[in-house]
């Protein structure tokens, strides 16, 4: 194996490098702060001349998500990235992808809202990401990176999950992780799949490969017969149950002896880690629980922890969204409080410690 390639990159740039290296076939995006570096980096790296990956600047986020729907429907590894406002526009397409079971990777580098809001970081799209977001009963697998390294690593992981379960996957990042620079070990290079490999991996894909031994492939979410449509929905629900069983990911720091536990994801988890160190320095027994998959949510792990701690403090860069999932896991066994900053303000470790002391 070649020696590791290490670069100093912004989170957004890491996404672009990782996409090229992990066999992505196409990127479709529309500029929006704070994630425009993804498209800019791809344009600069010109992967269409090396791996053959295509890069399209779409006319809108509505178009880019529908390009994803079209490209993913042909079995290709396709992705898009945007920020909150643009992700809101994509919800129709994400719902279609879920309904028609089309794989694809969507990166949300969150900024503050509502509306045009601010270009500063936020985590206020948690509810949108973990509750489907568009119309109908569906879920999206949501991965929350807390470092530039994870932004790179979750591209390949996102594609793995998307194709394993034929479902859209969202990487829910934020303006902090997207814009900050860190050392990144680039993922190993993986070639794009050949046509034969795609046909073998995706026998369902609508790629104009008409095999007369079986019916043609149609990608659709439509079914007018309610009995059939209920079956289709139950099939989706069974798939989501399978994902919940297999794919929950989280990380625990110093939870073994902890009286209190911070629950935080993404950049809020990085800040909470610092707050934990400060609190431990002051003799407070604090741990950190970081959900890596926001859907499926690590409900069981939190439920187990709730048997032995005095309380949880969720730290989010929003008005309190994940806190409801934590409360639902804890089921009243101990208090669950929320601390968050809004409008693009990022919480300070000291103010998190101060909140902890209010328990």
């Amino acid at each position, binding site marked *: 194996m070649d020696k590791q390639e290490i670069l100093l990159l912004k989170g957004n740039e890491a996404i672009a490098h990782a996409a090229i290296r992990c066999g992505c076939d*196409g990127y479709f995006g529309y500029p929006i702060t704070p994630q425009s570096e993804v498209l800019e980096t791809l344009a600069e790296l010109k992967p269409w001349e090396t791996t053959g990956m295509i890069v399209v600047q779409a006319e809108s986020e509505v178009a880019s998500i529908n390009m994803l729907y079209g490209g993913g429907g042909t079995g290709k590894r396709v992705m898009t990235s945007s920020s909150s406002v643009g992700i809101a526009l994509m919800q129709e397409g994400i719902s279609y992808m879920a309904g028609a079971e089309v794989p694809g990777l969507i990166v949300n580098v969150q900024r503050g809202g509502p509306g045009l809001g601010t270009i500063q970081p936020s985590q206020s799209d948690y509810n949108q990401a973990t509750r489907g977001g568009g119309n109908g009963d569906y879920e999206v697998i949501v991965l929350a990176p807390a470092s530039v390294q994870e932004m790179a690593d979750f591209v390949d992981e996102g594609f793995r999950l998307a194709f394993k379960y034929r479902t859209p996957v969202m990487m829910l990042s934020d303006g902090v992780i997207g814009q900050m620079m860190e050392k990144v070990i680039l993922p190993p290079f993986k070639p794009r799949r050949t046509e034969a490999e795609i046909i073998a991996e995706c026998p369902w894909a609508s790629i104009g490969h*008409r095999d007369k031994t079986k019916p*043609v492939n149609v990608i659709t979410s439509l079914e007018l017969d309610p009995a059939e449509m209920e079956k289709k929905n139950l099939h989706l629900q069974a798939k989501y149950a399978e994902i919940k069983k297999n794919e929950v990911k989280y990380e625990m720091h110093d939870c073994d002896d902890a009286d209190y536990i911070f629950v935080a994801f993404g950049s809020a988890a990085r800040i909470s880690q610092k707050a934990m160190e400060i609190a431990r320095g002051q003799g407070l027994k604090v741990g950190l629980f970081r959900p890596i998959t926001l859907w499926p949510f690590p409900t069981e792990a939190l439920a187990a922890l709730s048997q032995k701690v005095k309380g949880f403090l969720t730290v989010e860069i929003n008005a309190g969204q994940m806190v409801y999932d934590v409360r639902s896991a804890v089921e009243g066994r101990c208090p669950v409080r929320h601390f968050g900053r809004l409008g693009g303000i990022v919480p300070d470790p000291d103010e998190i410690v101060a909140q902890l002391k209010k328990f």
Partner: protein
Amino acid sequence: MSEKVNNENETVGREAIIRPENLVYAKPELLNDVHMHYCPGCSHGVVHKLIAEVIDEMGMADKAIGISPVGCGVFAYRYIDIDWQEAAHGRAPALACACKRLWPDRLVFTYQGDGDLACIGTAETIHSLNRGDNITIIFINNAIYGMTGGQMAPTTLMGMKTSTCPYGRQAAIHGYPVKMTEIAAQLEGTAYVTRQSVHTVAAIRKAKKAIRHAFENSMAGLGSNLVEIVSTCSSGWKMTPAKANEWMVEHMFPFYPIGDLKDIQSR
């Protein structure tokens, strides 16, 4: 069932007549043996048949991806036996753009109505055409929303009555009908832009030639292609099929004139 044939007083069985040497016309192989949901007199069925014939004649059945819209054409995937994707309302050209760029040797086309293409999907349509995506857009213009039951479309003629302009389309209230094909002809990315109809045998032949030309352009990488078919909607227009054809010639053709608007190959 047998038929009496007045030939030297012989009775000839049906089987004796259905022979390859007697064959003058057949349903295209790619058209599925299913009931279409289209109303009697609707143009969709004829256009489906033409698309099926052209794909077959080009030998592209194993390399074709169709994108169906939201509207009456939504079930196109049930009728033509190729791979399909069913798009969200208006977004078919975005899907087609990705399919074609990811699979350049495939024949990729969208099949869209006036509401889908000229209203909710205006942006996707114009930008796909302008990017020169090597696809063909088949545009059924019947000046009404058929699937939802006869509401005003972006292409509804002035004065024309629909369920949402029951007193006739008026500029002050509803604005004007949009000529998407004329707009498309202005875009640098388009290779071939034409307006056809399927109300007579001669028109059907011309429409088929136009679809073939568009499909061939897309495979030759010459740019995007738009084939508008000025169509009837006898149910939405509340006319008999025959009357709808007459009405289309009398009222639609003066505003949506038939013919090629742009063909970069004939420059």
